[in-house]
């Protein structure tokens, strides 16, 4: 194969991606080391496990919404949507006596349904994603209360449900973390190696050009939002399995944390760039920070201040890196 002579100015994908991910990972490592040094209680098996465990719900939401953000959109409904899915899980499994497997699948698919509605609003009705998902956020919030009669639904009679999160397929290791890892790998493979992932990047990079290139942009946007909705359903499953109950009033604010994780991980809100590895690292950075600051007994008020600063620094560092590339 003839190698062209004037490749000099051109940057290849793999180089840039590797650099980005390496630096994000390095930041995580630095924070981790700082906390380990500052307190002997940090670097214990139990505490590291606690960190991973606390990442599960936000992490799952962040994985799904990474796709949406890469297309240049945004989904504000994932927090309350998660609560609604948890409620649906309760309605199906507890109230309507569905078999466990069916209920679990139903919850995830219900999340997909919410995503589908978002996708249709954004792609067909052309409502800006911010507005469309904001509306869905409110609808989901209300529906969660309506369907549950404002009362939590308890899964006490179905102990297998909690085991989804708290059980140990691997001894001393919670299932929830395994599920998060598996889902992260699937998301990563899909983003990098599937048509869904390719068109996600393409639409985010230049939607008009993608459409003119013969891709049905509307169809793919709907697919992306629906796909992200599956993650919302899964998050609803995971949080209700952890707590052993579906809490209808929870979830507000979770969407911003998920988006923060995505952004810290290097995904641009403008679309076209991002990675699953980055999102995972971003979610871990947030939970490591929360946990470490707690362990050091830093007053809780400061935690949000520090988190906000971290987001600023992470995004700025990312911008500087891209300019130099």
């Amino acid at each position: 194969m003839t190698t062209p002579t004037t490749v000099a100015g051109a940057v290849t994908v793999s180089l840039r991606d590797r650099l980005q991910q390496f630096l994000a990972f390095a930041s995580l490592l630095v924070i981790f080391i700082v906390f380990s040094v500052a307190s002997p209680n940090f670097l214990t098996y139990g505490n590291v496990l606690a960190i991973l465990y606390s990442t599960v719900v936000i992490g799952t939401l962040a994985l799904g919404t990474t796709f949406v953000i890469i297309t240049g959109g945004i989904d504000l409904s994932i927090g309350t949507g998660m609560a609604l899915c948890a409620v649906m899980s309760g309605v199906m499994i507890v109230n309507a006596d569905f078999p466990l497997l069916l209920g679990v699948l139903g919850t995830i698919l219900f999340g997909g349904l919410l995503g589908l509605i978002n996708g249709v609003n954004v792609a067909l009705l052309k409502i800006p994603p911010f507005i469309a998902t904001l509306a869905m956020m409110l609808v989901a919030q209300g529906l969660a209360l309506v369907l549950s009669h404002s009362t939590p639904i308890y899964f006490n009679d179905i102990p297998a449900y909690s085991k989804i999160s708290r059980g140990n397929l691997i001894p001393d290791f919670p299932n929830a973390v395994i599920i998060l890892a598996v889902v992260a790998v699937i998301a990563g493979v899909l983003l990098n190696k599937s048509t869904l992932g390719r068109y996600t990047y393409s639409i985010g990079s230049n939607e008009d050009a993608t459409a003119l290139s013969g891709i049905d942009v509307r169809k793919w946007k709907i697919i992306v939002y629906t796909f992200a909705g599956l993650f919302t359903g899964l998050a609803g499953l995971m949080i209700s399995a952890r707590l052993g109950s579906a809490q209808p009033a929870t979830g507000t604010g979770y969407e911003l944390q998920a988006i923060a994780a995505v952004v810290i991980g290097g995904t641009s809100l403008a679309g076209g760039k991002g990675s699953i590895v980055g999102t995972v690292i971003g979610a871990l950075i947030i939970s490591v920070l929360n946990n470490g600051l707690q362990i050091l007994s830093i007053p809780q008020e400061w935690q949000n201040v520090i988190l906000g600063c971290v987001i600023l620094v992470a995004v700025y560092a990312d911008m500087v890196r891209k300019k130099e590339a």
Partner: protein
Amino acid sequence: MNRRRFGAVLTAAAMALTVSACGGDDDAGGSGGEQPYIALVSKGFQHQFWQAVKKGAEQQAAKEGARITFEGPATEADVESQVTMLTNAIAKNPKAIGLAALDSKAAAPMLEDAKSRNIPVIAFDSGVEGDIPVTTASTDNKAAAAEAAKHLSGLLGGKGKVAMVVHDQTSKTGIDRRDGFIDWMKANAPGITLLPPQYGAGDQAKSADITKSIIASNPDVAGIYGANEGSAIGVVKGVEEASKKGIKIVGFDSGKAQIDAIKDGTMAGAITQNPVGIGEQTVAAAMKVIRGEEVPKVIDTGFFWYDKTNIDDPKIAAVLYQ
């Protein structure tokens, strides 16, 4: 394109009509109607506690022939939302208003407004600073928290490390339940070391994570106090997830999860308020004021310690909610 736009306009018009139709109902009950209208604004739906309050309020209203609405924001952290609801409630010109303030300072201007319109205010659950409320129907949270402290100290034999997971530090309940606990411990249990209070906004998952961090940094912690329903359940979950045995947990309020925890021994016991009683007393006091009768400045709705031994006692069972 045009068809779509037309459809959207049509939908919007239909929605607007529906909304105004709903809003119209309220005017009917206003001035000359039979049933006096009382607007109740609670702290929200995050905990089942408020459903119990609502039940008590509805029962009393039915008994006395009053009409009530019962609203609250989604979470107990949502101060702004509650202020908006309060403003809207006043705008409906009710005969009386009941308020469980998330932040009494934030509510102050609205209460001034209510006073200027001669709408009496009955505070419940959390008191409101100042003298605008005609009366306050609530639990004496400080005393209740002190009771919790007494029992926890008793369970620990008067010594050991104790942690607190509180819901917030802006509402009177948050402040009182924290301070009541701390004050009692300082005065009566010098052998107990108190760790600084942590705040979890009453979110169960967050409180669970916080509990695990507390345990990780203080492996010798002997007792943990959760100052409201969500915090307490979170503490129970956190201890479970950390697989730590032997920690004595004391909670607040009830709810199915707490009741189950007490029944199976993971939680030592809890303080319950009388939420149904709060609802009843609030509406009763409001009706008295509307009729022009005197009401006491403070209505103590009571609290009780309950644990495995007395949980089935009818007196206790009556004030617990699921």
